[in-house]
C-alpha cells in the first residue's frame, strides 16, 4: 500500500472503497494512446470492468492560441485558426471571418458566400467520413471501414489542395471574401466528387448498418438524455442525436443557408448508434446542399473591395460569430479597441464543451465501451486545448 501514489489513494478513498468491500482500480487511459485521438487522458476508476468515475484530463496540447491572437494582427490569426480543429480548417476560417465581419460590418460578395458554403459542406463530408471511420476502428473493425472513408476523404482533400494550396491547413477565407477564385475546372471536379460520394455512403451503409456486432456494441450504449444534452451546452450531431432540433445553419441562417433546401437529421435515443446514424444522414443532407450550391454559384467578385488585408483596424466594439462546424457550434468572440490587434479573442470550441458530458455517458459502462462513447463525441485535441 505504501507504494501507491497519494492521488490514487485519495480517489479510491473518496469512492468509499476504503471499507474494504471491493477493490477499485484506477486506470489512466492515454495521453499517448491512439484511441484518445491525440493527447487526451481519461483518469478512470474501475470497479471490475465497470466505470465508476471518469475524469477527463486535457491541456497537453495547449498552445496559447487565444493569447497569441491578441498580440498579432487580425489577418495573422487566420492561419492559426486552421490549427484548432485541423480536420475541418475551412469551417474554422469561416467562423473567424464571420466574427471579424460582424465586428467591422463587412459585406461578403455573393460568389464568396457560395464558395464558403461549398467548402464548408465538403469539410463536413470529410469530417464525418473520417469520424465514422475512426469510430468503427475503435469498435474493432480495423482497417477496411477506415480505409474506405479515407479513400473518399482523400478526394475532398485534393479539391482543397487545388483550391487553397494546402490539404489541411487551408488558410483560405478572408474578412470580406475568400483569398483566391476557384481555379479552372474546379467546379467540374467537385461536381464529379459530389456525384460519386453517394456510392460510398451506400456501400458504407451496406457494410455496417446491419452488422450484428456493430448493433450490439452501439445500441443503448452511452445514452445521453435530451435534458442533460441541453443543460451541458452540447451542440452538433451529439445534441441532435439526443433528439434536439438545433442546427445553427437553420437557427441563425448565417451566410446564405436560408437559400438551400435541406433537412436536419434528429436521433431518438441519444445512444452511440444514433450519433453514428445522424452523421451518416448529415452527409446525405450535405450532398443535397452541395448539389444546390454547385448549380447556383454565380460569377462575380470574391473579395469585398473596401476591406484591406493589411493594416486592418476595426472600430472599437465586440462581436460574436458562430457557425455550425462539423463538430458543433464553433464561435469566436472578439473585442476590438480600435487597434490592429484584438483586445480579447475567445474561441468557443465545440469539442471541449461536448467533452464535459463524457463522464455522464460513460458511468456504468465498461472500458471498451468508454472508448467507443468517447469516439462518438468526435473531438480534436487541437481545438480542446487550443
Amino acid at each position, binding site marked *: 500500500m505504501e507504494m501507491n501514489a497519494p492521488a490514487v489513494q485519495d480517489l479510491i478513498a473518496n469512492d468509499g472503497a476504503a471499507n474494504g468491500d471491493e477493490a477499485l482500480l484506477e486506470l489512466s487511459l492515454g495521453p499517448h494512446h491512439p484511441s484518445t485521438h491525440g493527447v487526451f487522458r481519461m483518469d478512470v476508476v474501475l470497479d471490475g470492468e465497470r466505470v465508476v468515475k471518469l475524469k477527463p484530463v486535457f491541456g497537453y496540447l495547449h498552445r496559447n492560441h487565444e493569447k497569441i491572437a491578441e498580440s*498579432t494582427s487580425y489577418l495573422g490569426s487566420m492561419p492559426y485558426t486552421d490549427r484548432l480543429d485541423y480536420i475541418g480548417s475551412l469551417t474554422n476560417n469561416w467562423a473567424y471571418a464571420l466574427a471579424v465581419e460582424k465586428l467591422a460590418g463587412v459585406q461578403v460578395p455573393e460568389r464568396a458566400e457560395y464558395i464558403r458554403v461549398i467548402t464548408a459542406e465538403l469539410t463536413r463530408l470529410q469530417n464525418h467520413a473520417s469520424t465514422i471511420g475512426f469510430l468503427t476502428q475503435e469498435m474493432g473493425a480495423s482497417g*477496411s471501414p477506415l480505409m474506405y472513408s479515407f479513400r473518399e476523404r482523400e478526394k475532398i482533400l485534393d479539391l482543397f489542395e487545388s483550391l487553397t*494550396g494546402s490539404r489541411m491547413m487551408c488558410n483560405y477565407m478572408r474578412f470580406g471574401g475568400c483569398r483566391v477564385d476557384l481555379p479552372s475546372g474546379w467546379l467540374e471536379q467537385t461536381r464529379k466528387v459530389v456525384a460519386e460520394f453517394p456510392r460510398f455512403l451506400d456501400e458504407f451503409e451496406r*457494410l455496417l448498418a446491419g452488422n*450484428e456486432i456493430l448493433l450490439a456494441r452501439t445500441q443503448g450504449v452511452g445514452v445521453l438524455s435530451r435534458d442533460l444534452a441541453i443543460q451541458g451546452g452540447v451542440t452538433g450531431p451529439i445534441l441532435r442525436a439526443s433528439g434536439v432540433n438545433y442546427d445553427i445553419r437553420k437557427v441563425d441562417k448565417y451566410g446564405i443557408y436560408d437559400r438551400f433546401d435541406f433537412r436536419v437529421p434528429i436521433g431518438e435515443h441519444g445512444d452511440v448508434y444514433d450519433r453514428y446514424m445522424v452523421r451518416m444522414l448529415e452527409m446525405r443532407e450535405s450532398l443535397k446542399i452541395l448539389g444546390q450550391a454547385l448549380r447556383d454559384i454565380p460569377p462575380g467578385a470574391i473579395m469585398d473591395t473596401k476591406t484591406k488585408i493589411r493594416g486592418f483596424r476595426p472600430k472599437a466594439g465586440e462581436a460574436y460569430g458562430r457557425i455550425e462546424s462539423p463538430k458543433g457550434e464553433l464561435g469566436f468572440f472578439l473585442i476590438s479597441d480600435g487597434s490592429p490587434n484584438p483586445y480579447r479573442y475567445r474561441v468557443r470550441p465545440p469539442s471541449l464543451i461536448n467533452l464535459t458530458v463524457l463522464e455522464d455517458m460513460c458511468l456504468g459502462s465498461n472500458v471498451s465501451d468508454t472508448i467507443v462513447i468517447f469516439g462518438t463525441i468526435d473531438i480534436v485535441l487541437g481545438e480542446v486545448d487550443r
Partner: protein
Amino acid sequence: MLGEGIAKGFVETARNFFGSYLSKDRLTTVQYPEERLPQIEATRDFPFLVYDGDDWQAGLRCVGCQICEKECPPKCIYIEKSKDKKPDAVGKLQFFPAVFNIDVSVCMSCQICVEVCPFEAIKMDTEFELSTDDRFGGLLWDKARLSKSNAYYGKIHPTDAAVSDALLAEEKAKAEAKAKAANEPMANSTLPNALQAVSGASSTQ
C-alpha cells in the same frame, strides 16, 4: 438470421477487394518514391525569393521593405536592409535585403508573406523533399538558398506567374513613361539592365 448483416458486409469488402484489380477508383494507392501523383498547381509549402534574369543578386525583386517580416504570424523571417541601392524589377533604384533569412522549421506555410508583398518578390515553392540531418543550419535558409528564378516560378505556378508578370510589366511601362517624361537621358542610363532582365524572364513563359 444472426450473422446476415456481417455476411452482407463481407460482400462489400469482397467487392472492394476484387474491384481493386479491375477499377482504378478502388485502388488509389500510389507507390510513392517510384510513382508520383501529378503536382497540383496551387500547392504551397515554403516561400522563396523571385529574381529576374540570370544573376540572382542583381535580379532579386525584394527591396527589403520588411512588410513580410512584420506580418509573418510565426515570425520566421529575418531581414536586414542594405546601405546602398540597386535597380529593382520596375527599374527604380531601391534598397535590397543585405540579409534575408527564413527559418523553415518555424514557417507554417500560410502564404501571408506572399499576400502582403507589394513587389511580387516572395512566392511559395512546391518542393517538398527537404529532410536534412542538420537541424540548425540546414533549416535556416539564407538569401542564396531562397533565391529562385522567375522562369522556375513560371514553371511551378504558371497561372499565378502570368498574372504577376503582367502586373510587373504594367508597372514597368508606367515607370518608364514617367522617367521618359521627366528626364530622357537619365532614364536610358539606368533602365537597360532591369529592362532586359524582365523581358528575358517573361519570354521563357
